[in-house]
């Protein structure tokens, strides 16, 4: 874990790229990667894409604060958040949360809590784009 920050956040244009490498130091025990993928029927009908808008830098700061509070609350080692802005087509990944932890239970609980709170508090919006 020495090679990475405990919390990292990035908001980037378009679909997310490849997942981050698993931390290779310290043998974390559990490494969980969650990807949110744009569904073809999001928002009550067929769509071709979602367009994300983030209020920056507030969104970035909120994700980092949320990451730090969830990290401390659940005792996980490191937490990496990636979110798209702009257009993300159906089938592509718009959100990724990667958590390294000593044990599985807290990694899964931290993941669930982070996403619940993000969906409530982080100023990011999505809008369906129809074909």
């Amino acid at each position, binding site marked *: 874990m020495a090679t990475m920050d405990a919390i990292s956040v990035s908001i980037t244009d378009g679909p997310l790229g490849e997942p981050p490498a698993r931390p290779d130091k310290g043998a974390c025990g559990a490494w969980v990667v969650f990807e949110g993928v744009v569904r073809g029927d999001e928002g009550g009908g067929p769509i071709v894409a979602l367009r994300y*808008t983030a209020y920056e830098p*507030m969104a970035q700061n909120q994700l980092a604060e949320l990451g730090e509070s969830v990290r401390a609350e659940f005792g996980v080692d490191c937490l990496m958040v990636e979110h798209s802005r702009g257009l993300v087509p159906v089938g592509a990944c*718009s959100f990724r949360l990667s958590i390294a932890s000593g044990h599985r239970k807290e990694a899964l609980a931290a993941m669930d809590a982070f996403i619940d709170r993000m969906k409530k508090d982080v*100023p*990011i919006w999505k809008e369906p784009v129809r074909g």
Partner: protein
Amino acid sequence: MRIEIRIFGAEARAAGADALAVDLDGPATCGSLREAMRERSPALAPALGWARFAVNGRYADDETEIGETDEVALIGLVGGG
């Protein structure tokens, strides 16, 4: 004084704009801004019943004071993920 408020998502679509300017008298708070916006933009009235304000990038309550140099945003239902 004149406060410009950024608006996003469903609220921006309801208002037909992504920002709104409101003139306020005297010492202003998020609460007085909320009232002034209700009069200024009836399309936003439903959201103004529950939406939060952010001042300088942090959520604020209705007692938070605001001045002309503050960055103010109305944060309705968000939808990240």
